[in-house]
């Protein structure tokens, strides 16, 4: 995972892309692309009503453009959130593209992150969002944010799985997966305790540990893809505090 190699002294991708060291730049961009490519792809599919093939093209093209035109260096954190800035860049990019020119230009190697478009397309098919139902800028922002949170959480869950495997806590991860991720309304602490032949308090402790680690990882990834401390705090509140009254 890109985040594992990310230098601790430069916690923001915006700082890192401005670095003189090309290797550090690539690592920073990979971190950013890993978090953003799926939201961008789904956004292009829905907002711009593009067929899957063209949306794939545009997504890769957009990240190529981020590199070529040095868009991250132009980001002004006083004006907007990084997430909003990137979404507006996507809009502007798609609007300005001509299909033929696009096909000529796209080479595709903008990022080292594997872009699983087929998987993203499958996720999109599972959602019930109708492009016509999201016409306002607010709902577009909301949709993009929702997909961005999903992408961030998916990265954190994946990293938690590896983290658990390294510490031989696979059972902890499975409990976490079954209770917090499966969405099974029938699942209970008692059932899990019976399934794994452990005490209910062990289930409670396992969940408590996994959630704590999940939050730590998610916040670390979030910190990396925010441009400033202030933005990080704002985004952390938006990501974790949206159930607020």
């Amino acid at each position, binding site marked *: 995972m890109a985040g594992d190699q990310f230098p601790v002294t430069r916690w923001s991708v915006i700082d890192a892309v401005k670095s003189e060291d090309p290797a550090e730049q690539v690592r920073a961009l990979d971190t950013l692309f890993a978090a953003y490519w799926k939201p961008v792809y789904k956004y292009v599919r829905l907002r711009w009503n593009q067929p899957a093939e063209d949306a794939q093209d545009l997504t890769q093209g957009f990240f190529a453009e981020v590199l070529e035109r040095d868009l991250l260096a132009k980001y002004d954190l006083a004006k907007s959130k990084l997430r909003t800035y990137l979404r507006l860049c996507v809009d502007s990019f798609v609007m300005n593209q001509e299909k033929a020119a696009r096909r000529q230009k796209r080479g595709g190697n903008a990022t080292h992150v594997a872009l699983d478009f087929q*998987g993203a397309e499958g996720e999109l098919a599972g959602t019930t969002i109708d492009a016509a139902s999201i016409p306002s800028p607010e709902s577009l922002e909301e949709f993009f944010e929702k997909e961005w949170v999903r992408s961030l959480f998916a990265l954190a869950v994946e990293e938690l799985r590896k983290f658990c495997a390294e510490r031989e806590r696979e059972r902890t991860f499975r409990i976490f997966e079954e209770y917090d*991720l499966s*969405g099974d309304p029938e699942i209970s602490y008692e059932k899990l305790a019976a399934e794994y032949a452990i005490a209910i308090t062990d289930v409670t402790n396992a969940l408590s540990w996994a959630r*704590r680690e999940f939050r730590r990882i998610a916040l670390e990834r979030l910190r990396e893809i925010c441009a400033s401390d202030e933005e990080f705090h704002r985004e952390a509140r938006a990501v*974790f505090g949206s*159930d607020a*009254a």
Partner: protein
Amino acid sequence: MKFLSDKAVDRLRQNANAPDLSGTRYQLLERVARGGMGVVYAARDEMLDRRVALKVLDVPVADGDLACRLNREARVLARLEHPGIVPVHDVGTLADGRVFYTMKFVEGQRLDKHIEAVISLPDRLRLFLRICDAVAFAHARGVLHRDLKPANVMVGAFGEVLVMDWGLAKILREQSAGKSEEEDPEATILHVPRASDSPADRTQATHVTGQGTVLGTPGYMSPEQASGDIANVDERSDIFSLGAVLRFLYTPPGCEGNQSRAWRHDKALEAICAKAVETNSSNRYISVSDLSADVSRYLDGLPVSARKETIFDKAVRFYRRHTVAILLIAAYLVMRILLLIFSHR
């Protein structure tokens, strides 16, 4: 990478945000409210077997200014032992690194909800006087609330009034006092204004260590707070907020925001409000005690310091204060006159 459904994302979000109480004496029950910088949960203190309110930062980070502020809020509350201020029980850091504190769990309603059932103006004003008592006490201990509003006042099941959410509180210290043990880095060095001070003295008596930060709630925040003019934020800023609360309280049910329909549009009460919410802080009441004394005088049918009375006003007030006696005397006189008329026929 595993696809996360909307339900899974919501669940992760909810669980990741819930405070991790492992290793503490508390058991999480439910979320009850959200304050300026934290979320308040109901929790059970397993050692004392009682329900407490647990406040924890809503931003899930352990470091930084917000954690310091929550810690400070707990310390501020700890120094304010008063029946009108919610008592703090415990403060600490959770396993997830977030700062928390626990306080008395107040079973009741927020003032803005509670007054919907309080029809009588005197009853509303008595509630206001109890808020003033708590704020005056805090001021006497060198603490400004800075976010007084109906939503930050709770009225308990037995009518107790508690001023809540001291997250924006500012610790002041008197110039004559020595260096405080827990000095607020943002502290204004307070010179408590006296009636004998000239307006210039009163406005120039403060010294500042931080400037430009806007903290508070629009509509209840004094102009000096709204403009981030920390140099001029003192007791009179809280008095401004209390004036706005008073205005809210004397607006009858269903007429919030419509000042023209306030109770009888009482000139004396309006003058009290106007004086409390003066734009220029030096024209406001000097202390909360002065404000509450004026409201008490109004309740007792006495003249208020905020308004010079005409003879007509005096007569009206005299009539209101002695309505029963005046009516009895008038009835007696009418009876005597009628008796005289009939006896001379």
